[in-house]
């Protein structure tokens, strides 16, 4: 029985609706990229990367301190989250069937869903209040908390993709479980895990809310972990909500740098996963 006219029409309308939804979602993306690039390119210059912010009312200057701050904060976050994330990921994949592994997985997903502002509050109470001091350390701690579940889940997923025969081979040769994991299974999954870490870093570098009252902001160049530190995101926030035309210009330049970081990292990750997929296909 061929579909009657009405049903056929409904079906075509539905297909058109879905295609329309895709186009509709592309509009904001295109608009955001257009404005960030067109406004950002005009304001972005070498001084942006090498100069310090100028005093209020004086044009020019850059965000050198914020760029260094973002690098330090991301480094701190990675130093905390990579070991914890990878080892808990190993636990989840090695003992995948156990009830405790399910609990850890649930905790990781929960942590991932905690609003970033709440992470900031927690980091404030734990890492700012006792020292009575906003600090780079507290900011890195907050970002690290957000990074742990991403790395843990990525590691888990990638380790589960490693063929069981590799692990069994190592165990059959008399390796201990730790030996099998650290010298056979983990190295096999390492390229993927590194990709995951890069993506997580890109996401973390774009976070603002957890830094507002942990790392706070700093008008001066600082690399001290015990002092408040500037970051690209918080600086963009300050500039965007400020009253000066020149500040807005700087904010767009900062946004362009942030979007470029995200874009480059996702492109690299995509290329890397493609290569990995091809490698797996060959094996």
């Amino acid at each position: 029985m061929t579909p009657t006219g009405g049903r056929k029409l409904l079906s075509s309308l539905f297909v058109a609706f879905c295609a329309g939804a895709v186009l509709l979602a592309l509009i904001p993306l295109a608009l955001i990229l257009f404005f960030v690039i067109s406004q950002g390119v005009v304001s972005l210059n070498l001084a942006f990367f090498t100069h310090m912010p100028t005093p209020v009312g004086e044009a020019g200057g850059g965000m050198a301190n914020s760029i260094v701050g973002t690098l330090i904060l991301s480094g701190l976050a990675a130093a905390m989250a990579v070991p914890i994330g990878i080892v808990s990921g190993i636990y989840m994949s090695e003992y995948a069937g156990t009830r405790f592994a399910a609990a850890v997985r649930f905790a990781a997903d929960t942590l991932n869903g905690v609003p970033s502002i709440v992470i900031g509050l927690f980091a404030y109470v734990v890492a700012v209040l006792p020292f009575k001091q906003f600090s780079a350390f507290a900011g890195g701690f907050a970002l690290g908390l957000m990074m742990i579940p991403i790395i843990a889940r990525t590691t888990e997923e990638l380790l589960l993709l490693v063929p069981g025969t590799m692990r069994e081979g190592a165990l059959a040769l008399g390796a201990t479980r730790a030996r099998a994991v650290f010298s056979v299974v983990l190295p096999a999954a390492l390229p993927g895990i590194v990709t995951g870490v890069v993506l997580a870093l890109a996401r973390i570098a774009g976070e603002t809310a957890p830094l507002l009252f942990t790392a706070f902001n700093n008008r001066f160049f600082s690399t001290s972990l015990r002092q408040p530190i500037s970051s690209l995101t918080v600086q963009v926030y300050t500039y965007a909500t400020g009253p000066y035309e020149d500040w807005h210009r700087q904010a767009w330049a900062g946004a362009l740098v942030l979007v470029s970081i995200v874009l480059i990292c996702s492109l690299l990750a995509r290329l890397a996963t493609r290569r990995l997929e091809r490698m797996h296909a060959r094996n």
Partner: protein
Amino acid sequence: MPKSKSRSDVAFRIGTGAFGFLLIALVCGIGVILAIESMPSIQKFGLSFWRTEIWDPVAGEFGALPFIWGTLYSSVLALLIATPIALGIAIFISELCPAALRQPLVFITELLAAIPSIVYGLWGIFVLVPAVRAVETSLPASLRALPLFSGPPLGLGMLSAALILAIMVIPFISSISREVLKSVPPAQREGAYALGATRFEAIRAAVFYARTGIIGAVMLGFGRALGETMAVTMVIGNNPKVAVSLFAPQYTMAAVVANEFAEAADRLYLSALVEIGLVLFIITLIINSFSRLLIWSMARTDKVVAEPVEAEAAA
């Protein structure tokens, strides 16, 4: 097996398990620490904190009703806009589009999800808000008389917040729905086609099969929207008043914490803000757990359906 090896294996299990335990401890720790810190506010105001509309830090009066209202209102509006679009995208990518287009589209939607919240906020202030203001001013007076569109057309307000939230959760909902649709057995669609179904009817069958997972995906998006901070803070107008109008500047829980926490001086003020954070934490925790449960339960019923087939094949 030599004893030393089994001992090493036990040590490995405990050692890695300790890191896993750390994750569980962190989640509990967040709840406990925030609860302790909000004690002064909880003891002073009790439940009336959530029923009071007055937020006056200078006078020491704290009522969080406007924030919970603004958070729920903006998130519900965002979902109303985002859900049909996100599902349309998910269905287009997983069921309709040519294979060559699939990867690029997935990449593009993921890009939309990867743009930092602060960039959305910046774009919101300088592009979206003026555009919304223009639309608001051009609205005919007869519509402006409705409570939904009352008040001065500022641009900054509920409508802008809902729009920007919708843009931000669309990629999130669509990517999870896509995963869910992927897990629908092809037999569901093939069966429908075999009975003479049109494309729409076959997809409807697949979506119906995946309904629990899709509801889970939408709820996860809701959880995301509730906690979204920067972009909303920058466009919602930050005015602690309960209002129905889409034009009215309002406030959300995340936004008030982001704006006022660093400047809050006295203990009660800080504690009131932490309590808002605590409740935000609890709400997102419940919503996320429930939606994951829905998505998991769907994955599990799949397994139950699939297992007997495997067993037959093995026999």
